[in-house]
């Protein structure tokens, strides 16, 4: 069991910004921060559970039919998440809409099953699932935060007690950059963020070479 398996997903091998997997939900649900958190929680649950189960069953599943087996395992956990959210968080269920069952075809989950869980121990796969899930959630929250603040001038989080869960940003609330909340804003922002992360890794590589 290595701590490295947990931390690599958060920044160094971030599934969204570095490996570029799971783009559909990343762009589709990031109109509000709370949707990003709901989606992230769903993905962490599905990814961790499917990683554990696939790592535990890796010697039983025949090699030739492994992909359909993985898909059925993943789809079952997604159905659990779907039913759970439908019962206990109907507003998030409605906001996520069709993107919730689409977790099944999220490349991150099948990708980790194939690339990691099918080759490593249960404990390592558990850490890998949590780490990758957290990295995905952080990336989603970052994108949602930028899009919601610029596009609507608000930050929507959980409603607790008298607080209704909506934080307003002065100025932007009255004059929002509306395109950020719409479809083109998501694609443009993703392009600029990816370029930013490319620049960071370029700088890092240059520094390492200079140090040598």
């Amino acid at each position, binding site marked *: 069991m290595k701590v490295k398996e947990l931390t690599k997903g958060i920044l160094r091998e971030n599934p969204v910004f570095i490996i570029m997997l799971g783009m559909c939900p990343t762009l589709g649900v990031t109109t509000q921060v709370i949707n990003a958190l709901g989606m992230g929680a769903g993905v962490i649950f599905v990814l961790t559970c499917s990683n554990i189960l696939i790592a535990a069953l890796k010697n039983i599943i025949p090699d030739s039919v492994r992909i359909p087996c993985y898909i059925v395992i993943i789809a079952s956990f997604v159905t659990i998440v779907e039913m759970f959210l439908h019962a206990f968080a109907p507003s998030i269920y409605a906001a996520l809409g069709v993107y919730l069952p689409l977790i099944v*075809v999220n490349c991150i989950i099948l990708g980790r099953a194939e690339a990691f869980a099918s080759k490593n121990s249960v404990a390592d796969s558990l850490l890998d699932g949590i780490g990758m899930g957290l990295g995905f959630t952080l990336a989603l929250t970052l994108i949602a935060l930028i899009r919601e603040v610029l596009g609507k001038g608000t930050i929507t989080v959980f409603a607790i007690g008298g607080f209704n869960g909506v934080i307003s940003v002065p100025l932007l609330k009255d004059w929002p950059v509306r395109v950020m909340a719409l*479809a083109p804003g998501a694609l443009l922002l993703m392009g600029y963020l990816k370029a930013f992360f490319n620049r960071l890794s*370029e700088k890092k590589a240059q520094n390492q070479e200079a140090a040598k």
Partner: protein
Amino acid sequence: MTYIAIFLTYVFINNFILVQFMGICPFIGVSKNSESAIGMGLAVTFVTGVTSAICWLVYYGILQPLHLEYLETVTFILVIASLVQLVEMVIRKISPSLYKALGIFLPLITTNCIVLGIALINITNNYNLLESFAAGVASGLGFTLAIILMSNIREKLDLTPVRKSFRGVPIAFITAGLMALAFMAFDKSLLSNLHLV
């Protein structure tokens, strides 16, 4: 809704790539040259059309009579995965030349969000069998349109100087963003202006 309205909705107004962000992975991954873009587009259109109809039949023929609606996600993905496999085998047997053109794209289609997405949307919108089939074909054509446009732009982009950190994927996303801005011109009011709703 009339079939023309369904067609306009899924090709232009709710274009799966540029408005709903489904199928972004193959859209960015396979759009580097226009030949493979056309191949991918046709393969997706074929699969979305067939799976829309079959998933509709499975839902209303098996799941609903047995009150197993909550199993739709699991069932649909299994139907799609086995159907893609079947289509691959049939094409290989019947037309080796078509297989050569589409073969490498077929396995990728199982994890394309559009295929599962349109099957689920058909059920949510209470379409009948023919409407589901039309919606499936139209969403595949919308994907084809977007990916062909994108591949042509990217072929031109290869010849222009782009900053190093923007090269490749980032500039593709920004291009897609600008295309999405153009597609915002297609609005729901298009349908009412044409007296289709």
